[in-house]
């Protein structure tokens, strides 16, 4: 009897995992160009293939990895890059917190496992499921996204050397093209809020860059932009309704 229960449990887990893989396929396809571009730029920034792939294996966070590349290219120190990575990825606290309230209570080791894969996109896909979300389902979604991310980082790295010199020289703009590609749809979807926050970030970075290094400058610009926006919003007496917050969460989920 006990054996039967274990078997049906295992079947359940395999089923959830497979469903997760299927739902995660769209993320895997979406990550393809982003990871290829990351590998490409990593090569042109001077990283070895091992370093580029290791970063995708250990970090698994698109925005932070791109940011690290741009900071490495500017000669930024390691501590600043790590701190900036921390600040940028602090937003995942929210996503894990939200998943924590929606996922099945259970094995901590499984939670620790899928916590590693809690990117914006994995969060977006899993958090739309009804409560309680199965742990193996989340692991399935994260697993296929992760394999795509790591695999296509390596593919992108080797693609770089086949490109003509003029294209390689023009790659310097790629990073900024990517950030623009991430920002514009958010502005279209969320409107003024995103535009104002991004503008404040840009303005404060320009000012701080006059006397601080890039890493600290980006960090302080970000914090000041977010705090100032909130303060002005408060002064103007704009209410933050529950619906607004939910909307922001959805928009946020699509912005990596």
């Amino acid at each position, binding site marked *: 009897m006990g054996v039967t229960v274990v078997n049906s449990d295992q079947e359940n887990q395999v089923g959830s995992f497979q469903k997760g893989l299927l739902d995660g396929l769209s993320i895997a396809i979406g990550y393809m160009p982003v990871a290829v571009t990351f590998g490409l730029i990593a090569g042109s920034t001077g990283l070895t293939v091992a370093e580029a792939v290791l970063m995708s294996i250990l970090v698994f966070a698109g925005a932070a990895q791109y940011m690290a590349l741009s900071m490495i290219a500017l000669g930024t120190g390691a501590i600043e890059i790590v701190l900036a990575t921390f*600040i940028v990825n602090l937003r995942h606290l929210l996503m894990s917190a939200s998943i924590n309230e929606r996922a099945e209570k259970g094995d901590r080791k499984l939670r620790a496992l899928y916590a590693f894969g809690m990117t914006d996109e994995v969060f977006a896909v899993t958090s739309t499921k009804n409560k309680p979300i199965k742990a193996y389902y989340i692991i399935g979604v994260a697993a296929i996204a992760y394999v795509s991310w790591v695999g296509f980082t390596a593919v992108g790295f080797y693609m770089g050397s086949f490109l003509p010199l003029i294209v390689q020289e023009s790659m310097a703009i790629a990073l900024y*093209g990517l950030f623009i590609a*991430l920002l514009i749809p958010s502005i279209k979807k969320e409107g003024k809020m995103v535009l104002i926050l991004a503008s404040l970030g840009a303005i404060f970075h320009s000012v701080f860059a006059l006397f601080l290094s890039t890493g600290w400058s980006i960090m302080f610009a970000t914090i000041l932009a*977010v705090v100032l926006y909130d303060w002005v919003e408060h002064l103007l007496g704009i209410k933050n309704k529950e619906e607004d917050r939910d909307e922001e969460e959805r928009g946020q989920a699509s912005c990596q």
Partner: protein
Amino acid sequence: MTMFWMIVAMGAVTYIPRLLPLVMLETEHWPAWAKRMLQRVPYAVLGALIFPGILAVHDNVWFPIISGGAAVILAYLGAPLIVVVGGAIGVLGIMQMFFL
């Protein structure tokens, strides 16, 4: 070697915020302002990452401004990410070929 440890540390500081709420913290009663600010961080970061860094891409500041502008237009039209990035690279490449 420095690069290796930097990557390991990047991995650690990325994992910790993803891990903590799932294994330890009671997050239901966080203040609204904290949630709000954390949600807005990515947008401010993107702005800071784009400007003024983009101006340093080429000696002639108009080169990155024009190729960045091309990226804005492509992204606004809803082009896929790789097309936006490729478009920016292409426009910069063309300018370098003809206006150097």
